[in-house]
């Protein structure tokens, strides 16, 4: 292929990358502007005043620093939910992959059906049920429904089949290791790399979730970032000066995820997602 032709794919990829980065770059520019500059200066040029610092201070003092509470909540929900959901998935997937037991087929088929059911359509029925037992507007009400991850169980089952050899378990049994110990010390360890991907997928799913916490929660100190910033935007419709807070909040909420994402890059095993196809 001639060098000129080789430039073409590169150029197309760069265009795609620009498309994906532009909103983040623009939000960075917009966050440098003071409340008045936001609507009066050229939209694609940053301001070099104290705008961004002032915006961060304003945001941090807004309603007693509630923004940082939202940030903390988001991380809390995603981290706890991600860890517990991965362990639940690992246990279930491991059992289905490596044991013959009554009801195994039924459980697996029901879980497969759940993979095809968009979880989000359950949010409102989940709210209706939890409000019956008085669990809405609580941390448990947001966390519990997100612990069951059928796709995670499916991935764990596939991964356990290929990563945990039966012969190793047999050897452990001959050495007198209990079944429980085999799961914790052999099974979980061998499933490690796959579990990281299941955890990351669920972490991002909870981090990105909006509808469930939006319907479950009414007190704003329990909101995750998504619901918090949305409520801020809704107030902004009446009070335009809040827009610069929304923009600064958006920037501050994107940066840590990007950092986390870049640092965890090498742990991603997307081939697992594709491999699960076969």
């Amino acid at each position, binding site marked *: *292929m001639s060098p000129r032709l080789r*430039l073409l794919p*590169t150029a*197309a*990829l*760069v265009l*795609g*990358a620009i498309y*994906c980065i532009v*909103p*983040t770059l*623009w939000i960075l*520019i917009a966050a440098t502007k003071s409340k008045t500059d936001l609507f009066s200066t050229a*939209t694609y040029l940053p301001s070099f005043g104290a705008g961004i610092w002032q915006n961060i201070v304003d945001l941090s003092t807004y309603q007693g620093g509630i923004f940082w509470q939202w940030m903390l909540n988001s991380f809390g929900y995603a981290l706890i939910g991600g860890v517990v959901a991965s362990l*639940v*998935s690992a*246990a*279930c997937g491991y059992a*289905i992959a490596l*044991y013959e*037991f009554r009801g195994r087929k039924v*459980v697996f088929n029901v879980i497969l*059906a*759940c993979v*095809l*059911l*968009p979880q989000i*359509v*359950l949010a*409102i*029925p*989940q709210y209706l*049920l939890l409000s019956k037992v008085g669990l809405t507007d609580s941390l448990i009400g947001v966390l*519990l*429904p997100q612990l*069951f991850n*059928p796709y995670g*169980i499916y991935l764990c089952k596939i991964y356990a089949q290929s990563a945990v050899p039966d012969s190793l378990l047999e050897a452990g*049994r001959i050495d*007198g290791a*209990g*079944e429980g110990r085999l*799961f914790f010390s052999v099974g979980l360890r061998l499933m490690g790399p796959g579990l990281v991907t299941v955890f990351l997928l669920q972490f991002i799913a909870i981090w*990105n*979730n*909006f*509808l469930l916490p939006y*319907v479950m929660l009414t007190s704003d100190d329990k909101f995750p970032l998504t*619901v918090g*910033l*949305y409520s801020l935007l809704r107030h902004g*419709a009446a009070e335009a000066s809040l827009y610069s807070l*929304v*923009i600064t909040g*958006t920037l501050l909420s*994107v940066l840590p995820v*990007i950092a986390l994402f870049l640092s965890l890059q090498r742990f991603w095993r*997307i081939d697992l997602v*594709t491999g699960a*196809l076969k």
Partner: protein
Amino acid sequence: MAARNRAKLPYLLVAPAVALLTLFVVAPGVYALVLSFQARKVVGGLLGGGSKLVFVGFDNYGLALADPELWSSIARMLLVALLFIPATVGFALLFALLLDVPRVRLARSTRLAIFLPYAVPGVIASLMWGFMYLPATSPIGGDHVDFFGSTTVFFSVANVAVWGSVGFNMIVIFTALRSLPAELYEAARIDGCSELRMALRIKVPLVLPAIAMCTLFTALASLQLFNEPNTLRPLSNAVSSTWVPLMKIYEDAFVDSDVNKAAATSVLFVFAALAVSFVASRTVSRVNR
């Protein structure tokens, strides 16, 4: 003892998942089903009257299906899906094929940049794009182009959704491309087959299963469309409070406080979603065979 343990452990391991499944999938589903057959009726006379739940059969379903707003919300969702699904899968495939071109430059950094929006919540993405669409703050010509016009709004909503999902699908297809054996191309290359021909004639047919799976994922995502239009709503009048089916259900349940009608619509929606994904997954497995 060991034998008994061996018989018990799988049940213990499956128990948490089954308990969560029962409590948070089956029970809400059954409860929504029960609610959908009930309605709150006013009882008693002028004095000291109250309301109680009575069984009304399929009345709520009739009410829900006769509501023209539900049908318009479905139509709007389908319009967005019509833009969103082909654009997402098409660009994902294009970028994956480009990344797979031998000796292409900047592959690592562009791949990462395109993947990044996956970690940005739909609400946050809609906020960023929303301000870019807004005439007063738009850096992309929002003062000349009306991004919230009656037609353009579909493109604007679809664009936010595409932005958020191209990267993940690109990685799925790219991973499938990478797992193809390299010898496959050697013969074609010796025969003087161009990279373009090779992509169209050899690579695309071989990664068809991955493409089909991406199409299924994006079709499911369009059914769940809620975050993008709901977040753009405070910024524009072009998005109504019942713009897509999930917003309509939300409106019924929380604004109109008609929980029973909302439950009926939810049940219909769950079945519709299951039907779509069942048909789609059958198609996927046929492609795989």
